[in-house]
């Protein structure tokens, strides 16, 4: 598996902070560049203009008086902190690094970023507990390099490896997942992925599943072959 760059994408600094160590570790292992990407979602900015929309702080208190400018400033602040932490981690691991702050739709931006040789680490919701499992989605012509990466990660953190098989796929003989789940159709698989909680770490090939990453609450590692 040739990985030229590892992109850590997040929609806030809180997400990025949780996944930064993982992304750095993978980049160092793959000898790829580390890129940070903060996506300033259009929808979030729009949210502040909606009369009935609500903003609720992380401790459960409703926040009032937030306008688009305030939200944009919050994104800029997150971008600064994200970049600083990324630089510190990359330099500590002797990696080349870069950082981008983009505004737009998450799906579109990710589609744009997914080029050959890219491993995308798309952050899920911030975690309050250690990872519980590693989940691997492996198609019929499965990417065995990605499968080995997932297995290695599961072994490293000492957690189970759950293998999700789309219709027609079979588990490879040299992989020993803890749990195997088979899905009769694509929507069921997508629903299962969407239901994964933030303490899961999802490995999947990019492509049609890329959009799912937007909805998954866990961190997704998507590889573009």
């Amino acid at each position, binding site marked *: 598996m040739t990985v030229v760059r590892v992109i850590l994408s997040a929609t806030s600094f809180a997400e990025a902070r949780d996944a930064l160590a993982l992304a750095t570790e993978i980049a160092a292992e793959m000898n790829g560049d580390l890129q940070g990407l903060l996506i300033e*979602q259009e929808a979030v900015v729009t949210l502040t203009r909606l009369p009935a929309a609500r903003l*609720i702080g992380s*401790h459960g208190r409703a926040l009032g008086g937030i306008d688009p400018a305030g939200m944009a400033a*919050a994104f800029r602040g997150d971008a600064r902190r994200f970049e600083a932490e990324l630089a510190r981690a990359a330099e500590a691991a002797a990696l080349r690094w870069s950082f981008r702050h983009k505004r737009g739709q998450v799906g579109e931006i990710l589609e744009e970023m997914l080029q050959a040789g890219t491993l995308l680490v798309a952050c899920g*919701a911030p975690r309050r507990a250690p990872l519980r499992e590693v989940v691997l989605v492996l198609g019929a012509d499965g990417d065995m390099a990605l499968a080995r990466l997932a297995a290695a990660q599961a072994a490293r953190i000492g957690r189970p490896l759950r293998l999700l098989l789309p219709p027609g796929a079979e588990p490879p003989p040299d992989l020993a997942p803890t749990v195997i789940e088979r899905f009769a159709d694509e929507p069921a698989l997508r629903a299962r992925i969407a239901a994964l909680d933030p303490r899961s770490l999802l490995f999947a090939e990019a492509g049609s599943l890329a959009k799912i990453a937007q909805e998954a*609450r866990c961190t997704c590692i998507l590889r573009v072959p």
Partner: protein
Amino acid sequence: MAPEAGKPLEASELSRGVLDAALEFETTGDLEPLEDWPGQERALDALRMAAESRFSDFNLFVLGNPGTGRRSAVRALLSGAAESLPRPSDWVYVNDFDDPRRPRAMDLPPGRAMVLKAAVEKLIDDLANEIPAVFESEDYQARRRAIEESYSDRQEQAMGELAEKARARGVAIMRTPMGFGVAARQGEEILTPEAYHDLPEDTRERIDAAMAEISAELEEILGQVPKGMKAQRREVEALNVEMTEHVVDDALSEVKAEFAGEDNALRFLEAMRDDIIENADLFLIREDGATAGAFPVATTKHYAKPQFRRYAVNVMVSQPHTNGHGAPVVEESLPTLANLIGRIEYAAEQGALVTNFTMIRAGALHRANGGFLVLDARQVLIEPFAWDALKRALRSGEISIFSAGERLSLISTETLEPDPIPLKLRVVLVGERMLYYMLTAFDPEFAELFKIEADFDDRMPRDVDSAKLFARLAGTIARREDLRPLDAPGVRRLLLESTRLSDDAERFSLNLGRLSDILREADHWAGGAGSETIGAPHIDSAIEAAERRAGRLRELSQEMIHRGTLMIDTDGAHVGQINALSVLEIGKSRFGRPSRVSARVRVGSGKVVDIERETELGGPLHSKGVMILSGYLAGQYAPEEPMSLWASLVFEQSYGGIDGDSASAAELFALLSALSELPIDQSFAVTGSVNQFGDIQAIGGVNEKIEGFFDVCAARGLTGRQAVLIPETNIKHLVLRRRVVEAVESGQFRIIPIATIDQGIAHLTGRDAGARGADGRFPEGSVNALVEARLQAFAETRRSFGLRNGQEKGKP
């Protein structure tokens, strides 16, 4: 035959009996060593009393001159007494885990402090390995994960259900940099404001209601997060305690068993257990890697790490580990405040002074607790705050540590207030008599705290029994100092020197230091002569060498007289001029020398002018002597007449201070010569004081004074006429150097004891003093008759002068 006053002494009268009965041995090596100190029974009894008394205020002051064996006696007696006393407790300071500023003092059975210290260090080492191992174990990790997951499961489940519900109700929940956003959705996109406004009102109301409901639930879920986190932390803490308790109790059980029945140790171990469990995270600090040091982690001294200092056992006093018994005898030669009561040390950390209970250091009082503490009184008194601290400790019965800086409020840094340690010991101060008397006079607490005095005598009476003891003492000193033994003549010579040191032919000196010095030097001379024993010649050599070393000033004084710079006549006769004798003591040098005293008289109103006093060179005792001789003159010669004399007395060529009354007889003789106009034979020198009745009284330094005049005469040539008049009562003090005795023996020099002024003036003038006859008159031509006649003449002159003066005044 006893010596007769007024008659020259025979050579045989200058030497006491040699006490041969006491010296019937070959060498002192044949004699039994002395276990005790001869002549010090009174002091030794006091020492034994202080050593054996159980009363806390029976502390002891050992007084006496240096060299009298005070310290060796104290050391030996106290060591003996200490052996029969029980071994005192060990004392340690440990942390007060509730209040680290007040370290706890703890006593342990003798010899157990170091055992506890080692046991605690091993315990900490074990726990430093075992506690991290427990927290890294799969068992612990699984249980902890289970706790954490139970809480995160609940939250994630609630969030998952809410997300599903929101999706079903057409509401989107989005993460933003500020938290969560809740908005209506249109398909996969967020409903724009414009699209929202285009919706029918009932649809908007439905959307608003859905968003309100989802928002409320989201608020509720998020609001539970901190509470859940707190509950989770508590569960994890409880788990940590449970795991730590298990390890700590397991490790402690062995230590507790070792200290079964030792309540203090067990209490401390229990407090330490609770603190370790409460602060188990201290054992998880890993500032050094597993391979950081030269030794593997398992053998590293973990107890020495800063985070474990709180569990240290600071041993203040530890009795020897052996099963021996006995209380300590501690001598503190430098009794500073800190050396006495202990101190709290400080270390500089980032510019601030910091301390902790492991930096408390023991003092002599701690080490001597339960036994004896021997101190030099002068040293204690000159060390700032030391005397005060010692008294405070004895008064309060406990040792409280404080520093001079604290006392003077010079230290503003945080410090400790260690528990005072109960004190029960006997303090023995060794000092000079003057210190004892001054403390008694000026320090009211002294007599309360030091109730016993052990007064070491300087001398002991000279008899056969004491001479035997002296011989054994000399042998004991020789044996102790690894010297050759003394033969009998050597002891005899040392004995003679000892009487000389005591300034009394009937007393031996007990200055063991000085005797030891002589013996060591004599041993050197004996060695040089190839002798197996120390004999009289070697003692002589030692004494002469010591005198020669200290003799520069004496020789200088003799030289000045010999060259005529200091005018001293040793022949011829002069009116109103006499040789008085004085002793100079400078450093180790002590010698006598003659001084010329002269007197002039004329008519006056009864005043004898002491020129020394007028010029403030004379001390009070000298002035007293001059006043006494005025009394003698008045009573002896002019009982019925007004004293019409003006006389002046002076020590010629004296440029320093003069004190003492030993020249008062000489001054009176000079005055009588001046009054009688009879010349005094300058072959004589005189020493002695006089009372108002003309009796000659004893003085000090008689040997040195005689030798001083003898040496002047010898340098000029002995004539056989030269003599020294001494008080008859000083005969017993005569221990003269051999050169003087030999001169007397050969008739070249004389020593004449006198009991009265009349005896003395007769020798000096060669004329009878004369006693009043039945007619109340002195015999014509006698000294006293001439003196009285002169005084009456002065009175007549004065009377006629007064009459003439009165007539002058009465003229109209």
